[in-house]
């Protein structure tokens, strides 16, 4: 056993004299960095700013008495996500190790996070739902799959209704939607709305009609050549000027419009990649069957094209999720925005490192897990 370890060490760390040198240099660097971080985190950093403001970071100024609505939203979204993951990855059976890891993480979260009793109960319930959802998705893949997209589609208005209120629920105005809640909502709404526009633009760009093609190319290239903040500025300042005086969009809606305009151009390029990957023979065969152009696109080309671009769309979603941080520059109080307003409180002045590391960690957890899932999905789709 020790011999194995020694060979491993020799092979991977000390194979040549310069590799040994590199290893030693890296070890010194690592030791120095880790020691510095640990000393800072335990002695100098004041984590009270996170502890006190945790609800602010997560849901902002959403009324505390209505938190149950957020919990239900979380339960719906996560259960659906778990079922979807189960459908895609259910073939790999649940291992004992996987379950143990999952239970361990939930346990740590339940114990470590400074939450009250009801929140802990909700979390526990959601954990159970997650587990059941994944299991269901894996077990009944055939039954669940056709309903999945419909369920997602249905969940969307329900989630918006639960957050925004109205129709019998107490309404919550959009300027109370803050923090991580707003970040997630903006990213999800923008990607969903930009999808149909992106598909149309991609079809337009590959169209044989020169006028349609040139309109699409013009739009896509102009939007992709301009920074997102320029588009957001345009949406905040110019949109009200372009609309007639009696249409008033609030700040959140204008931001969504900007994100959708921006994201549609990138979506179009992703979808175009998928369109090009559909073999010509498919189109010719469909035409030979007597389908007209619209039906060929709807029934033959799009279903195949869209399947191949799922990983690219997940990648775009990750980018969009990160890009929502720019909304803080146009006055929205999403995760980065709320961090900046917390840092402006007099008792937390100068606690930049703690706050930015904390929200950075939140962003990282979401983006990294999505990119892991997307990589596995890519492997799954390719075989």
């Amino acid at each position, binding site marked *: 056993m020790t011999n194995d370890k020694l060979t491993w060490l020799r092979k*991977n*760390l000390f*194979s040549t004299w310069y*590799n040994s040198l*590199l*290893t030693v240099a*890296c*070890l010194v*660097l*690592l030791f120095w960095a880790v020691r510095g971080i640990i000393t800072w985190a335990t002695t100098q950093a004041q984590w009270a700013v996170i502890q006190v403001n945790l609800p602010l970071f997560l849901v902002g100024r959403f009324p505390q008495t209505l938190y149950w609505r957020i919990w239900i939203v979380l339960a719906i979204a996560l259960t659906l996500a778990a079922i979807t993951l189960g459908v895609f990855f259910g073939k790999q059976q649940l291992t004992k190790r996987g379950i143990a890891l999952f239970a361990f993480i939930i346990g740590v979260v339940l114990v470590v996070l400074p939450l009250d009793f009801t929140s802990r109960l909700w979390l526990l319930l959601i954990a159970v739902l997650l587990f059941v959802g994944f299991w269901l998705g894996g077990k009944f893949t055939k039954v669940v799959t056709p309903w999945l997209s419909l369920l997602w589609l249905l969940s969307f208005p329900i989630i918006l209704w639960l957050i925004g209120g109205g129709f019998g629920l107490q309404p919550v105005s959009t300027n109370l939607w803050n923090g991580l809640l707003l970040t997630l909502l903006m990213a999800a709404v923008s990607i969903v709305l930009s999808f149909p526009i992106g598909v149309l633009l991609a079809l337009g760009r590959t169209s*044989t*009609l*020169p*006028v*349609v093609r040139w*309109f699409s190319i013009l739009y896509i290239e*102009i939007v*992709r*050549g*301009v*920074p*997102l*903040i*320029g588009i957001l*500025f*345009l949406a905040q*300042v*110019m949109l*009200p*000027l*372009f*609309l*007639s*005086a009696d249409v008033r969009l609030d700040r959140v809606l204008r931001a969504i419009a900007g994100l959708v305009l921006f994201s549609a151009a990138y979506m179009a390029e992703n979808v175009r990649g998928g369109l090009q990957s559909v073999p010509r023979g498919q189109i010719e065969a469909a035409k030979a069957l007597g389908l007209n152009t619209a039906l060929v696109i709807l029934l033959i080309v799009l279903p195949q094209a869209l399947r191949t671009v799922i990983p690219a769309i997940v990648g775009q979603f*990750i980018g969009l999720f*990160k*890009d929502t*941080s*720019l909304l*803080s*520059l146009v006055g929205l109080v999403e995760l*980065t925005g709320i961090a*900046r307003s917390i*840092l402006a409180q007099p008792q937390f002045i100068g606690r*930049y*490192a703690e706050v*930015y*590391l904390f*929200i*950075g960690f939140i*962003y*990282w957890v979401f*983006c*990294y897990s999505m*990119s892991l899932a997307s990589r596995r999905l890519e492997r799954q789709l390719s075989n």
Partner: protein
Amino acid sequence: MTNSKPLIWRDVRFWRIVLQLVAVFLAVIVVVILWGNLQRNLQQLGIQFGFDFLKQQASFDIGEALINYKPTDTYSHALWVGLINSLRVAVAGIFLTTIVGVGAGIARLSDNWLVRNITMVYVEIFRNTPLLLQLLFWYFAVFLSFPKTENKISLWGFIGVSQNGLELPWFTLSPEFSALLLGLTFYTGAFIAEIVRGGIQSVPKGQWEAARSLGLKPGLAMRLVIFPQALRVIIPPLTSQYLNLTKNTSLAIAIGYPDIYFVASTTFNQTGKAVEVILLIMLTYLTLSLTISVVMNLFNRSVQIKER
């Protein structure tokens, strides 16, 4: 059966023309409506469309300028200063991020386990957090927490680090510029590292073996055989990273570095000329993007396989 012409609505060419006419018609209608609204709204606000304001006095100060600038200069001069500041960050950023990215990409494939994994941690951390957040971190949590100039930290005797930024022997970089440059470099570098890794891995293993069997040392084999071939795969996505970096310089506004976007938005705040300012911003970035695309396409052509 008479041999008459087919009915016109049975003809594909007819429908192609009609469809395009409809598209043009719709586009014209949308533009006319939007333009009408714009005219009406601007009239209500009492703003006249026109670029005359560029000749007016800017009367705001710009923190750092490479060319002479004082608040009594015109808006157009202020915008020039901003453009030069943008270009300065973009050029320096593209240069540094290439070094960081290529270095990290090669290190990701090192046969040293520690080097490989440290680079992986770097890539996964910087790729999966927002650039804006990283910029804020560099500026507020790193540069502003450094000691004052009097007791600056000295690195290797010739670089001084303080709240005043990076002090090199021949010039000083402001903290805003340094934070922006470092943020852009390390963020984009993480993406370039993945591109370079993918490019190198796309070169067939046989090329390595052939180069080694010719007696080339690993370093030389990489430089002379593997990397030139990997470049063919690397350059197109690398171009889009350069474009991203250039567009992302506009985030300077978050940390107060006076780039073109910063100056333009100050101009908008003072004059209320929304349409003109937006047009200027879009034109500037489109020109920059196009220039980079053209240069990189030329470079790309020179490394592609010459088919004879």
